[in-house]
């Protein structure tokens, strides 16, 4: 991996401007993505992971807006660029695969026509090259180019998701952002799609940001893992290290909430309580009301993101060393 990161997000905050007051959905998030890296972002619903991803891709729409921070992609800060300026970057250098291909694909146009739209809108490509490239990317994701003439409803769920990924790869981008692309699929199709994404990534060297609520899904695919809770980063580290030695009690809780199909059957507890409402975040550490290790100061002092064992963790008791695994 070369030294200059593809993406550098710095101090990014996103507010939803609402009548009842602003709600900060993403709070001071910083991270980088290196060339060819696979970064996983996990968290529960309402933790701000999708908002973060929309902010990175500059797809936020009112009432959401970037309140602070920068998103530097290929040396340019994307925050504040006009649609025209962004258009030169979108699809060509950075593309997004949305959660539900059923909603993201146009039901009344063939797959081929939608590929053509993208290539015409973002580049000057002659028609015969468009056809050739469309067939090529479809073949890359294991779909017969025959299906360029198919409508979305004629494809299975897995094929629709794969054609969305093919569309994202039309111009060889440096970064592909994926928002739970497998969540509508059953486990077998999910597994085969994940393997395919990883193979394409290794073959073409693009970086991936993969957002999911299911940690186990990316355990074998991502290089680094970022765990979000209530709009903040709780833990950021190498994926294997996070799974083997989770530092934040929330990450631990998430890992212990998964039953396994192997090993002894053990009773699990999950995490008590519910994720907080972002309009009323708890004082101090946002996780303290649900945390089995919380002490008095956790309710009072707001923790920062502390470096520990080559990872970052937002936990006061890790910082002062009173909590050891």
């Amino acid at each position, binding site marked *: 991996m070369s030294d200059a990161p593809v993406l550098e997000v710095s101090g990014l905050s996103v507010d939803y401007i609402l009548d009842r007051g602003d709600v900060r959905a993403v709070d001071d998030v910083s991270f980088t993505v290196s060339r060819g890296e696979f970064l996983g972002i996990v968290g*529960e*619903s309402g933790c701000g992971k999708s908002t973060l991803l929309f902010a990175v891709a500059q797809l936020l729409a009112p009432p959401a807006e970037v309140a602070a921070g920068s998103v530097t992609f290929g040396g340019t800060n994307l925050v504040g660029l006009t649609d025209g300026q962004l258009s030169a970057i979108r699809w060509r250098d950075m593309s997004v695969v949305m959660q539900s291909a059923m909603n993201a694909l146009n039901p009344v146009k063939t797959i081929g026509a939608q590929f053509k739209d993208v290539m015409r809108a973002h580049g000057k490509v002659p028609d015969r090259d468009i056809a050739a490239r469309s067939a090529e990317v479809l073949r890359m994701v*294991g779909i017969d180019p025959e299906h360029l003439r198919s409508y979305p409803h004629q494809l*299975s*769920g*897995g*094929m629709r998701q794969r054609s969305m990924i093919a569309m994202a790869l039309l111009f060889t981008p440096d970064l592909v952002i994926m928002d739970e692309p497998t969540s509508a699929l*059953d*486990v*077998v*199709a*999910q*597994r*085969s799609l994940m*393997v395919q994404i*990883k193979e394409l990534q290794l073959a073409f060297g693009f970086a991936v940001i993969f957002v999911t*609520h*299911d*940690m*186990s*899904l990316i*355990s*074998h*695919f991502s290089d680094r893992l970022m765990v979000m809770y209530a709009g903040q980063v709780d833990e950021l580290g190498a994926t*294997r290290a996070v*799974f083997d030695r989770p530092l934040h009690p929330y990450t631990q*809780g*998430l*890992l212990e*909430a*998964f*039953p*396994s*199909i*192997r*090993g002894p*059957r053990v*009773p*699990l*507890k*999950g*995490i*008590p309580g*519910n*994720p907080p409402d972002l309009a009323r975040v708890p004082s101090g550490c946002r996780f303290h009301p649900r945390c089995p290790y919380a002490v008095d100061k956790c309710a009072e002092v707001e923790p920062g993101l502390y470096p520990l064992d080559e990872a970052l963790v937002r936990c006061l008791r890790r910082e002062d060393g009173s909590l050891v695994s």
Partner: protein
Amino acid sequence: MTSELHGAGLIRAEHLTRHFKIGGALSRRTLHAVDDVNFTIGEREIVALAGESGSGKSTIARVLARIYPPTAGEVFFEGKPLAAMKSRAERLRYSGLVPMVFQDPFASINPVFRVSHGVLRSLKLHRPSLSEAQRQEETARVFEVVGLNPDMPQRFPYELSGGQRQRVGFAQALAMRPKLILADEPVSMLDVSIRIGLLNLMAKLRDDEGVSILYITHDIASARYVADRLIVMYAGQIAETGPIEDVLAHPRHPYTQLLLSAVPDPRAPLSVAAETDRGEPPRVIDPTPGCRFRWRCPLAIDTCAQVTPSLVELRPDHSAACHVAQNSSEEVKAFTA
């Protein structure tokens, strides 16, 4: 089949079949959602029904809930065929004893009433002998059993989280003193940290309240966590069934093996290279005889294309519908985890 081991069984499906006509008025095409399925659910047991989307899991639940009548075959509840329950009283009794809990906790509770409304209504309908005070008492009891605070019944659905709403769904079912709860993907829309709580609740309902549960899911790991037995569906038919630990430890049907190899498991050693399948789910429109998994199966032999395999017991109480597995003495692996 397994009926001897589970007494007469609480509910028994025999040759259960449900087809749907598809296409326009002149179309003769038929979708075989469920084809010749036999199973028994005993008292006080959780049976997991697993399979990919379109495999017929939900259709089975809907036939058991009497939303669809079967095209062929019969369901027996406490030994009595469902088709014979004709009077309103009999049907009402059955729907109280076999209630359903739905997948989407945001769509399955009426948003304009307090959450106690559903419970109170079903008490009035299914247990008319209770007085107003007794109904309130029973409501408080079922909310407590499912782990909700005493003030919950007075709240409105929008005040509740997804996990709390799904508990309300179980409270509604429980108020009718059910024998069997049909739970169609009850946790799939909930956050990971909340799911375990609901699974623990299902186990508690079985252990403390003596309720049986048909747990429909595509998540094998969660099925293993709560269920006693597992039924694996593929393309409208049962591929494999047996005690869940035995099926997971010794999967005999190649589809079960594929399913298990695909389950993401962070505790497993790192490997991206495991073989995967690029196959597509089968079409079950006007299917021809033969095994429906044969196009995706690396072990398929000529017989598989001609004869539909039937379930044969290969281990104690554990059956698989696979020609290859039935003809080999040792375990054949088509896919490994």
